[in-house]
């Protein structure tokens, strides 16, 4: 693919967004004239409109749509906020600027003339408006030039990446190439926007993707050149992964057919993070089709591993009441309805302890990269 076609891809999406925004605004004006009502139709994003799509293996958003009416005083403020954010997005896209959610918040925040009221008082309000626009317009905010904090995700391994960096001053976008094997200790920082318009995954020689929950454990794998020895790409989202990290995992799987294995602590929170990579989250259910990787497999840790690998009892951490409560909730999630998982839940509950990835160092520092992980990969001992 030539540089020009990469750049034109970005322009095409931008043009499509501007068109879609115009249609969206026109519809508001049209219905105001014909129906004497001022409304927008916002897909419902509450838990009640979220379901587990068993066939696809992802959490999906339902069909329900709510009318947000400007003339309904209860909706008016949100309506205004959504429109102000939409106008800001129009400016961003038209001018080719990329900015953060926080910037958008400050951009639209001001006192409404004639009142003592602010357009927004809390960033959560503008964030929600953006999420509403994503569902209404059918573009994710990253495509609309808006990112969150970002910088949580890291990657290393045999993969060639190209980033397209737009120039707000109207110049030609820069193209930055990265070789995933030629990165420092910090790896390649996954940029906050990992959409195909911005990030091209070019050459992939790796055979699988290994996602490591924790940043520190990932560093162990990186320093040990695990990616070289096992021909894989190692990724971490530093805990709860941001959208871009999930997007990259998703794209490596779908664009390059790489199997995805996930490693987390053996505790309810770690296991939930696995499910976020795999099925998506309840909050961002509408993004599951582009963020989730339902074919992911769980490599470890499990309570069974504790026994199988003969860890000493000093690595055990007693379950808290909160852990037990969370475990109970997880049992009810349809996407955890596998016998294998329920056996692990039972085991954890019965034995009453959890265990961290770092606990593998109780044997010796490099135990996780030298023995534990290779053994699990070799045995294909994965949970669904």
């Amino acid at each position, binding site marked *: 693919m030539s540089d020009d076609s990469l750049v034109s891809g970005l322009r095409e999406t931008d043009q499509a967004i501007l068109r879609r925004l115009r249609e969206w605004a026109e519809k508001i004006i049209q219905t*105001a004239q014909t129906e004497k009502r001022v409304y927008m139709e916002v897909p419902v994003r509450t838990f009640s409109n979220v379901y587990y799509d068993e066939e696809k293996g992802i959490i999906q958003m339902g069909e329900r749509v709510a009318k947000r009416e400007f003339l309904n005083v209860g909706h008016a403020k949100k309506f205004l906020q959504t429109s*102000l954010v939409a106008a800001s997005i*129009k400016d961003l896209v038209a001018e080719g600027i990329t900015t953060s959610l926080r910037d958008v918040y400050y951009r639209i925040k001001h006192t409404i003339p004639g009142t003592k009221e602010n357009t927004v008082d809390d960033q959560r309000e503008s964030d929600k408006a953006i999420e509403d626009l994503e569902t209404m317009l059918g573009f994710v905010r990253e495509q609309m030039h808006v990112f969150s904090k970002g910088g949580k995700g890291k990657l290393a391994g045999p993969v060639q990446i190209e980033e397209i960096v737009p120039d707000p001053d109207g110049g030609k976008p820069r193209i930055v190439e990265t070789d995933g094997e030629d990165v420092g200790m910090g790896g390649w920082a996954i940029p906050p926007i990992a959409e195909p318009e911005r990030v091209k995954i070019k050459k992939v020689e790796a055979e699988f993707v290994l996602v490591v929950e924790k940043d520190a454990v990932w560093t162990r794998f990186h320093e040990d050149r695990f990616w070289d020895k096992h021909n894989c790409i190692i990724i971490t989202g530093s805990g709860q992964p941001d959208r871009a990290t999930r997007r990259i995992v998703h794209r490596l799987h779908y664009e390059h057919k790489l199997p995805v294995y996930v490693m987390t602590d053996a505790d309810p929170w770690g296991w939930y993070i696995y499910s976020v990579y795999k099925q998506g989250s309840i909050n961002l259910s509408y993004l599951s089709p582009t963020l989730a990787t339902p074919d992911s497999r769980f490599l470890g840790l499990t309570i069974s591993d504790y026994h199988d690998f003969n860890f000493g009892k000093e690595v055990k951490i007693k379950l808290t009441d909160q852990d037990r409560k969370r475990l109970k909730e997880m049992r009810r999630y349809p996407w955890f309805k596998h016998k294998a998982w329920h056996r692990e839940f039972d085991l954890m509950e019965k034995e009453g302890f959890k265990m961290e990835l770092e606990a593998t160092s109780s044997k010796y520092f490099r135990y996780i990269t030298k023995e534990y992980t290779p053994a699990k990969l070799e045995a294909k001992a994965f949970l669904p």
Partner: protein
Amino acid sequence: MAEKDMFREFKEHSVAEFFKKNKQMLGFSSKIRSFTTAVHEFVSNSLDACEEAGILPELYIEIQKLGDDHYLLKVRDNGPGIPPNIAPKVYGKLLAGTKFHRMIPTRGQQGIGAAGVTMFAQMTTGKPVHVKTSRGDGRIWEMDIMIDVKRNEPIVKNRKSYEGNWRGTEVVVEMKEVTYNHSKYSAYEYIRRTAIANPHAQITLIEPDGTRTVWYRTSFEVIRMAKEGKPHPLGITVDDLMTIAHFVTKARKVSSMLKNELEAFGDKSAKELEKLVGRELLEKNPADLQWHEAEKIVNALKQMKFRAPSTDVLISIGEEQIKKSLRANLKPRYVATVTRKPKVYSGGIPFLVEVGVAMDGDIKGFELMRYANRAPLLFEQGACAITQAVQSIDWKRYGVQSLNEANIVIFVNIVSTHIPYVSAGKQAIADVPEVVTEIRNALMEAGRRIKEYTSKVSQMKELMAKKRILDHYLPELSAALARILEKDQKEIHAILSSALEERYRKLKELEAKIGAGAEE
């Protein structure tokens, strides 16, 4: 002074002395109240007479100022007229008695009677009252009437009769030490409230400055004449019994007096009473009955059992008529009215309560209108059970945050053959538990209805207030959409604003509908 003492004095002293000493209690106290009392006596006589004769009342009241604290009052009605031989008694004999023992819920119960006005006029101006009356038989009678204060008998002067086609009674009286204004104790207020509680009457008032006010009737129903009943033994008071014994009965013995004059009191009751009070007392001549003896009988009666009193003598105004009248006279936005079923208090006295609650519209502030048998009670508001009942209601439950800050008129009419007054002044209802409970029940029933209205109003108010916010949002929204569409902001604003105005219009229409007919 207790009623007991007042009674004794009336027997022992001349009428003039009696009147002077009891002026306060008879309603002739302050300048303003004296005038109100005079109006009350004449107006209630007129209305009572019309009702008994089945006539739709038409009253003409004229007030002229003759000097400082010096007024002329003229009251004319289209009633049945007074026979020329009876008229002197009506205006020239105090406590003539006719309406003191009758078991009809009349307005006149409240006062001392028209002769009291004659007495007052006579004392302050030395002049008689002038009466003109005709029964519609082609002959009109006119006379001047005074009271012979020593004998409590009428003195008639300038009596004349002539032919004429007219029916009714007109009385003209000149009084000093009175005053007229529009204060809440005034004759004006009395007439206004009378008009409200008597929607079948048309009342014309000419005030000293020539102002003419007509309260047109909103009801064309002739008030049915009450069936006259006898007092029930359980409801009778010592005062009643004394009046009956001394002024009414023709019986020679107390026992036969009781049989003749009381309801549900027969031979069997007489025998039972004899066991309680002794034979001697029952053998006594009623004319010699003493207060303490009457008291003994009344207390004994309370321990006995009697057939329940009949309640069909009670004449209510009715929910519909109160509603119409409050609407016409107060121009409120909402009215709820309740007429309760008759109840009995003290085991024997039938009564019923009706209330109206009118809100907003032309009503400004809080006003409590108290009535006994449709006659307004203007004085002693604080001592009245109606006031206590109204204050004991938790109005917040019905969407009225504070009575004193609301625009609300509360109308309460107590109908009874014997209104339980606090004192001889007869301006405040006593806090008889059964009566208070009924007033409360009626108010709460009305309250539940106004709740629907008040909640709609507050909802709408809230909505309208919030809608004003939209006016401020609109330019912001227009600018945002104009930016996306790259169009002129004014154009977008015009479109959105017209949708907004459309919505406002519908809301305003909806708001206008609240109250009007909402209670139907």
